[in-house]
């Protein structure tokens, strides 16, 4: 899909993608000439199509996790192999408030979001995941 500013006859540039939230992605495009902006809001089927292709509109900051799509989409699955004890001991702890925040993420992307936030926290050397850390991770991965 490409977007064209009809007034300027100029291709519009991708600005940002948000979501999925309640099954919808919000993808914003802007015209560099006249500044016009508009958002593409996907319905659940379109959202699913994008997801099934294994792509992120606007590209990815971090490469996909191995088996991210299958593990994020398969409804019933085996518990993953337990992580070695030393890795788990070093994992950052979630505050109650931050956990609540995670609960607002749609269930099917929650494990992925949790992993991404934990990874971010570990990279940054945080021992605790607070709401602020969640916001920082969000800004980093889904600007």
């Amino acid at each position: 899909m490409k977007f064209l500013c009809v007034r300027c006859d100029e291709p519009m540039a991708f600005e940002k993608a948000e979501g999925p939230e309640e099954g919808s992605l919000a993808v914003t495009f802007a015209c560099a000439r006249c500044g016009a902006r508009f958002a593409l809001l996907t319905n659940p089927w379109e959202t699913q199509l994008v997801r099934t292709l294994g792509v992120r509109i606007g590209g990815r900051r971090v490469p996909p996790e191995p088996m991210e799509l299958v593990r994020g989409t398969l409804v019933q699955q085996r518990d993953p192999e337990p992580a070695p004890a030393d890795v788990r001991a070093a994992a950052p702890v979630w505050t109650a408030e931050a956990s609540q925040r995670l609960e607002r993420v749609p269930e099917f992307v929650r494990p992925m979001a949790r992993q991404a936030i934990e990874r971010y926290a570990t990279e940054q050397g945080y021992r605790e995941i607070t709401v602020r850390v969640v916001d920082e991770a969000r800004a980093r991965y889904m600007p």
Partner: protein
Amino acid sequence: MAGLGNGKETKMKRYREIVGDGGSAVLAQVQEQRARVESRLARVRHVVAVASGKGGVGKSVVVANLAASLTQQGRRVGVLDGDLNGPAIARMLGVGHQTLRVERDHAAPAIGPLGIKVVSMALLLPRDDTPVIWEAPTQDDAYVWRGTMEASAAREFLADVEWGELDYLFIDLPPGAERLPHLAGLLAGRVRGAVVTIPSQVSRMIVAKAVVLARTAGIDMFGEVENMAGYVCPRCGAVGDLFPGDDAEAAATSLGLPSLGTIPFDPRIALCADRGDPFIAVYPDTAAAEAFAAVASRLDALLEACG
């Protein structure tokens, strides 16, 4: 919209006149996925997709036993279970209880008793009777996504599993040929195909469709294995007809494929498959084990000759 076509609007740029995608980067990611598949398979010498016309002809059993025979002949072998909804290979190769190990940047295959590497949906499902259900906007829509999700899952297995050095990677396809064109697109020029049939006219008629479709998709089909060709008497070892009036060579020729050989029906094959024991190792001196070894040698010779 013809009525709206005044001079001004017809000058509007069209899709092909716009260079790039404005930063959505979707196409670039699709290309990146393909590149990852290619680099994962860089150390695999032969990728062999095994197809059949109908289900139940013994395709999975043949793949499992060929993998075992080739391993015994000193080849390094991996098997990717492409039958996502009817995964059987993991159980047959004795890794049904293992879990797919997902590391930081790759997934690692399960390793069976003979050292055969196996990746299957079965390594992800909690129980043997768990069906594959994909997330969908509503479960009523789930069937709509099945095809797309299955193609994506197959791609993800190929892109993320690190097989290491292999002489052979077998892909056990689901019955029918629907997956072949997609596979050809992903593995352009890297995959060859073989088919498994049984000596019945109906089986042949259906498998012919798979062969034609595969060739149309540009896959080099190099051979046919005929399974359940004759019945081995467990008492005296004599081989009798299971399907009367058959000629495997003539049949393979009619598909335009070299025959890789025939495998007799032997109940112990099914028994071993159910238990996850390698039949050719448990019953090495049987006609069926010799038949598997012969097919493996022929396949090896054929593919080594094409380099």
